[in-house]
């Protein structure tokens, strides 16, 4: 391939060569950054994953032991995988559904639509740290606003964040609330759906549900797929909010993959194992994404392909 690239380079005219060179020069800041800060760490992580490395002493090569230990004998890894898969399976779809419904709602002609759009988008621009603090003070069993109301009414409080069974559903609700970015993308897509399709459907006697199911969803399906993939990738890397809100607890119920990776790397000084964890996560994410892409033809409608076909 390299040879053909060079052959191709030789066949270029002077002007084309000059343009190519200029292109490379202009993109070089990004290219250098990509090589230094993405490619090199990725490759270095492969090496470190095959070593016992505690950051302070030189790494010792131990082959595939880190991978073997994680898969065969690490009990916490199994808990972490269970928590993470639960989270990925529920948070990405529920996030997309929430964002899509919010966008659909805000695409209708309602009074104060701009204000509502701003309100729904607001969680996306608030720093996660602030979000965590607000939710903590809303949901805390002892001092939270919601529980304070329950307490005033003489009712039992609800341990949203301190009960192992309730904490993950609580995080799911917070995740559904913080879908401003996906909502804006959906909103733009919804505004691009041709009005003529709805008009034709109305003439054919379709009701609102039929239009939503047979026009809105298919027309938005490529964007649904995009948001779903982004949601899945983000869910696998879920870290900041559970770290700030629960620190992996209670009783390890929110000990997600990224938290465990961080603990291994910086708290327990097992950088080799952390690198192995990072690579396993990378592979899982890639496999997941490929499966989604491969199966997407069954549920994604591309209008442009139909036009070509």
């Amino acid at each position, binding site marked *: 391939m390299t040879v053909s690239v060079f052959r191709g380079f030789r066949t270029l005219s002077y002007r084309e060569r000059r343009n190519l060179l200029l292109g490379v020069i202009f993109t070089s800041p990004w290219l250098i950054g990509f090589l230094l800060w993405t490619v090199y760490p990725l490759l270095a992580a492969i090496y470190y994953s095959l070593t016992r490395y505690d*950051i*302070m002493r030189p790494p*010792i090569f131990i082959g595939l032991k880190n991978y073997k230990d994680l898969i065969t004998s690490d009990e916490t890894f199994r808990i972490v995988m269970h928590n993470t898969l639960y989270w990925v399976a529920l948070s990405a779809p529920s996030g997309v559904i929430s964002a899509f419904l919010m966008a659909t709602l805000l695409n209708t002609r309602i009074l104060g639509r701009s204000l509502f759009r701003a309100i729904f988008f607001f969680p996306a621009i608030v720093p996660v740290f602030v979000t965590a603090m607000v939710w903590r003070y809303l949901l805390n069993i002892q001092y939270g606003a919601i529980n304070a109301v329950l307490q005033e009414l003489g009712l039992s409080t609800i*341990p949203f964040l*301190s009960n192992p069974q309730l904490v993950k559903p609580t995080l799911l609700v917070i995740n559904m609330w913080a879908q401003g970015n996906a909502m804006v993308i959906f909103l733009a897509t919804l505004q691009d759906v041709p009005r003529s399709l709805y008009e034709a459907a109305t003439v054919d006697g379709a009701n609102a549900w039929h239009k939503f199911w047979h026009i809105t969803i298919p027309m938005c399906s490529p964007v649904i797929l995009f948001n779903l993939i982004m949601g899945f990738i983000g869910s696998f890397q879920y870290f900041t909010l559970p770290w700030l809100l629960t620190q992996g607890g209670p009783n390890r119920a929110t000990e997600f993959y990224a938290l465990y990776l961080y603990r291994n790397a910086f708290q327990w000084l097992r950088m080799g194992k952390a690198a192995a964890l990072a690579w396993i996560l990378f592979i899982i994410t890639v496999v997941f994404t490929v499966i989604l892409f491969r199966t997407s033809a069954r549920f994604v409608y591309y209008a442009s392909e139909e036009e070509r076909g």
Partner: protein
Amino acid sequence: MLDRKLSRRDFLKGVSGVVAGGMLAACAPPATPVSQKPAEAPAKSEAKLTPIKFWTFWGGFEEMHEDWKKTDAYAKFIDGNHLKLEITSDVSLESFLSNIAAGTPPDVGVIWIYLDLMAKGVLTPIDDLVAASSLKPEEFLEGNWKFCSYKGKQYGVPALEAFVRRGLNYNARMVEEAGLDPDNPPVTWDEALAWHKALTKFDSAGNLIQFGLDPYDAEGGVWSSDGFMIAESWGFDWFDENTGEFNIDNDKMAEGLETLAEFIRIIGPDNLDAVRAVAGQGTWGGAFNAEVQAMIIEGYWHPGETAHEKPEVSKVNRATWVPVPESRRGTKFQFAGGHMLLFFKDAEHPREAFPVAELVNTQEICDIIFQRNGWLPAWKPFLETVDPSIYPGLDFYFKSIKETNEWWHAEPCELSSDFRQTKFAEVREAIYRGEMTGKEGAKKLQQLFEEEYKAAGYKS
């Protein structure tokens, strides 16, 4: 030359030169008026001073450094050693570790993973520097000094915050309101549990209003360089430094885990988590200062910190011995430990930085630290000058040095202190949530620690 016409380009050049010069002049420091007496020349030229990078994981040391500069001890330190101290505080563990890995550590630093650092060879031994210095080992509390060595070599000097770390502090007002006698505090865990029950209150809907003791809060829950309270209270060594063997899977440990779990079960594990999340706020003693928690196991700093943070609570603070099981009634144990200055091998001036250890163990500097933070060193000459009645409860810690009949200090175990801490927290939670017995918990910890010790390469 004079005949030359002034072109537009020349004009612009000239104007930009004048403007740039003017701006530079405006930015320059004001010139000393001619009539004014010339400023005194600094004693040492800044350029000749060796810069010493001093990092701490605590915050607020840059401000404290300004107070240090006003002391004679500091002037003597600068002039005598030709050093320039550059303090960076609030340095995270990640930052410390990244700099160690990159070969750019500070010259001197305080970071809580002391034994990890000693065992992993990133520090420079200082035995010769100590011998040649003004520091005298016998002037320090023995436990604190001992903790600064690993395998026969000295790596640290106790500093900034050390002294003793075991005391059961209680809020006398809450105790009295619960119908208990604050002059007869609990001595055994059974008595402490009775106090805990009397002090724990729920509303009619079953919601927690206040509680007696979270035995795992603050010093009660650590398993680090600050020791391990269960082992001290129940009286067993959990690690043998000579053989590298762990002794965690034993009846005393199992009993300790079960006994302390009972305290949490009475509060309710979900309630405890919530209190930790808010009242704790990430700082120790938050629930105590909020008067939600009536008792807390804390070090000597608790009286001083409470006085600074919540003076009204400080007034009703008292301290006594940490409880022991009935079988050890009469044992009054105390733990000496805390923090130290370490000198990093790969730094630019680790050996030149040694006088910092002398500086922070001077009367003036110790006094500033005590006044600002309520922290005490392990340096006896300063301890002798402290008025223990200044903060309610502090006198107990001073008396305890003389009255204790069992001294403890940190076990020299190389296992990552954060690993110990996290696994201990996981296991004790599983126990008080009823998923594991104390015996199973002890066995689990033994297994986890042995595996990790081996995996970290300390035992084949």
